[in-house]
């Protein structure tokens, strides 16, 4: 995947991260992955969970 030519003379990673050192590219990719991982760890409250059930109820009602 990393070697696919984007058509702009850069590989897909360079197209995403811009020009820079390999360390900069790794840092940007790491940050993207970390953001995704943190979103999986967000804690919820009882009110959030009630809200989740209400959303599911509304979707069930609309199906």
């Amino acid at each position, binding site marked *: *995947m990393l070697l696919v030519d984007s058509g702009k003379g850069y590989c*897909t990673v360079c197209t*995403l991260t811009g020009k820079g050192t390999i360390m900069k590219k790794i840092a940007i*990719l790491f940050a*993207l*992955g970390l953001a*995704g*991982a943190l*979103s*999986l760890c967000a*804690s*919820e*409250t*009882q009110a959030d*969970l*009630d809200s*989740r*059930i*209400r*959303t*599911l*109820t509304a*979707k*069930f*009602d*609309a*199906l």
Partner: protein
Amino acid sequence: MRKAQGIILLDRTKAGFIFAYQGGNGVAMVKDRHGDWSPVAHLSATEASLGFQIGGEQNFFVILLMTTNATQKLTDSIIDFGGEARGTAGDQSSGVEGQANPADAVLIYSDRKGLYGGATIKGGAISPDDDANQIYYGSYVTMSDILFDQKVKPTATATELAKKISDYSKQ
């Protein structure tokens, strides 16, 4: 719907660019021998993946568990209906319940495509959300405690959902 022994409502989202987030959450309920719905148990359907992916989609699923064997799988650490899930992929006709085979243990409906192919819910994609259940009920409870052993009482929100499901079951 009337014959369902259990139900899962599941919201799934897939979004990302290179690093993709594929996740979701939902709730499960089972019917007791008196025909009353249990309190809700929270489920998660979350996974992260790496690969060249771009874009996103959101789907809402209603999974009907038609047998007690199927409802028992809700107590597994990884809920996998495998070959028991049946449906007609991409069937968008109305009256989708009429399309179901009475012998099917698990029926899957989507907000996009009516009765949906079982392959849509991949094995291992759904698991109990123990953290959410602990927060919701104020102490650690298992799926079995919630769904089968009546160790918690339904919340007002869950009672509202149960009423909706019961109303649809009567239609």
